[in-house]
């Protein structure tokens, strides 16, 4: 497998419909680790960075896995390939745009990826469709336990697993869910959701992680506290308390929306689908807003003939690097808008 092959396949975790997938698009758990005996990334010399890369690459490729694992050298990959990996959530933008010896190990099915020499020596993540955090945790724990038989991670008797930034200290775990909350948005309750999240020490971000704006009612919710609580407590609190509550609020909001003003909501849904089916030029921001409405329409039975996997797949394929990989050349923003509109039309037009 090479990086270009990825652009042709849909991410399996976006294709499937896991539990509560009307609201929870996907679950992700990330673990941050650093090798004992090495400086953290900001103070690593390039040769020591290479040593970290080689050590972790060998350890990661020895993890027993159902799917083949591949290593990609990010330093040697083209800018477009690096952006493509970031668009598929397999690496972060800082990793794509960083410097020095660094890489990523990816499982062929894309459920697992491990960045080497990002902010920490190792940042690995497991994805699942819908709300399946406990499954993600089981998977990532298995990998972590295996790695600990091969390498030694920096650990402190008081502070736990040591990370370059103190905000990841302790368990090094980041649990997050990607949420679709059009109901809360349209009923004007997003601020309530932000405040509740803040009170629970949770971070809310846009679809593309840190620093990104929430576009088209898509949000990422993750834990901020990583110290003084066990990994199981963090995961269980998320999967058994926080996420079910949000799912319930969103479902109630959707129900209210359709009861209070059905024509207005249905108009929004069908008008969005009509624009997506007809547009000749479309920006990614507009596409995300309209796709959000269509997604709501599918889940509430207003649009019966489009599978949800098609919408999820479009989220990936209308992004700049995916478009350019498909075109086989660099495209100006205007040309990207043309190709994006064309891809959406083809995917959504009735046969």
């Amino acid at each position, binding site marked *: 497998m090479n990086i270009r092959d990825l652009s042709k396949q849909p991410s399996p975790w976006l294709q499937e419909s896991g539990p509560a997938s009307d609201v929870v698009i996907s679950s992700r758990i990330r673990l941050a680790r650093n090798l004992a005996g090495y400086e953290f990334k900001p103070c690593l010399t390039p040769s020591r960075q290479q040593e970290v890369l080689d050590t972790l690459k060998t350890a990661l490729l020895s993890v027993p896995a159902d799917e083949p694992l591949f290593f990609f050298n990010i330093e040697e990959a083209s800018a477009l390939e690096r952006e493509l990996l970031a668009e598929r959530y397999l690496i972060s933008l800082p990793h794509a745009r960083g410097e020095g010896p660094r890489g990523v190990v990816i499982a062929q099915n894309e459920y697992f990826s491990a960045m080497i020499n990002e902010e920490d020596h190792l940042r690995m993540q497991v994805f699942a469709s819908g709300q399946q955090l406990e499954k993600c945790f089981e998977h990532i724990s298995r990998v972590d336990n295996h790695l600990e038989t091969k390498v030694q991670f920096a*650990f402190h008797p008081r502070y736990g697993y040591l990370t370059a*930034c103190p905000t990841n200290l302790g368990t090094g775990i980041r649990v997050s869910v990607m949420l679709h909350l059009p109901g809360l948005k349209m009923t004007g309750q997003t601020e309530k959701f932000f405040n509740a999240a803040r009170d629970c020490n949770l971070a809310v971000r846009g679809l593309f992680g840190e620093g990104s704006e929430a576009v088209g009612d898509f949000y990422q919710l993750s834990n901020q506290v990583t110290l003084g609580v066990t990994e199981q407590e963090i995961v269980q609190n998320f999967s058994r308390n926080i996420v079910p509550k949000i799912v319930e609020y969103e479902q109630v909001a959707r129900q209210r929306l359709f009861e209070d003003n059905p024509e207005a909501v249905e108009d929004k849904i069908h008008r969005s689908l009509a624009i997506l089916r007809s547009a000749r030029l479309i920006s990614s921001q507009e596409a995300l807003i309209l796709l959000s409405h269509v997604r709501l329409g599918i889940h509430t039975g207003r649009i019966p003939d489009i599978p949800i996997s098609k919408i999820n797949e479009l989220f990936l394929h209308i992004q700049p690097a995916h478009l350019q990989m498909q075109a086989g050349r660099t495209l100006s923003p205007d040309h990207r808008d043309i190709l994006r509109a064309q891809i959406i039309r083809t995917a959504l037009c009735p046969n």
Partner: protein
Amino acid sequence: MLCQSCKTQTATIHLTEITNGHRVETHLCQACAQKQGLAIQTQIPLNELLSTLLSVPPEAAAGTPPSLQEQKACPSCGMTLQRFSKETLLGCPQDYDVFEKNLLPLILRTQNDRSEHCGKVPADAGRVQEKQMRLAQLRRKLEEAVRREQYETAARLRDEIRKLQ
């Protein structure tokens, strides 16, 4: 409902003020609320937090001028507090001990007042270390049980702690 200020975006922030018995409602979008300084920050930017916390010398270092504190460098990686407050990343595991007094307020602030790890311990960590972690975890559970008035659980945890000690 549209934002009262820009009249184009949907209002997502709704304020109710009651002055001298008069109720005034304001409906704004996120951008307009932010312009008027009304939006609630969901997260404190890390850089801001760091510079606030690191600019105040902790009690233990109160006798030392702040400039000397900032210049202190880690003997292992050369990291200084000044550099850390700019880059927000530490240089090596030893920094946690070297700058502990300065980092602790930051850790407590970002980690919901917690400063003791109680999660997974590496399989090869020394047995003493593992015991310490287990004790910290049990003590925390004991506190919780007492707070919830679950005395049977508390007694069991107390016995377990005694056995380990």
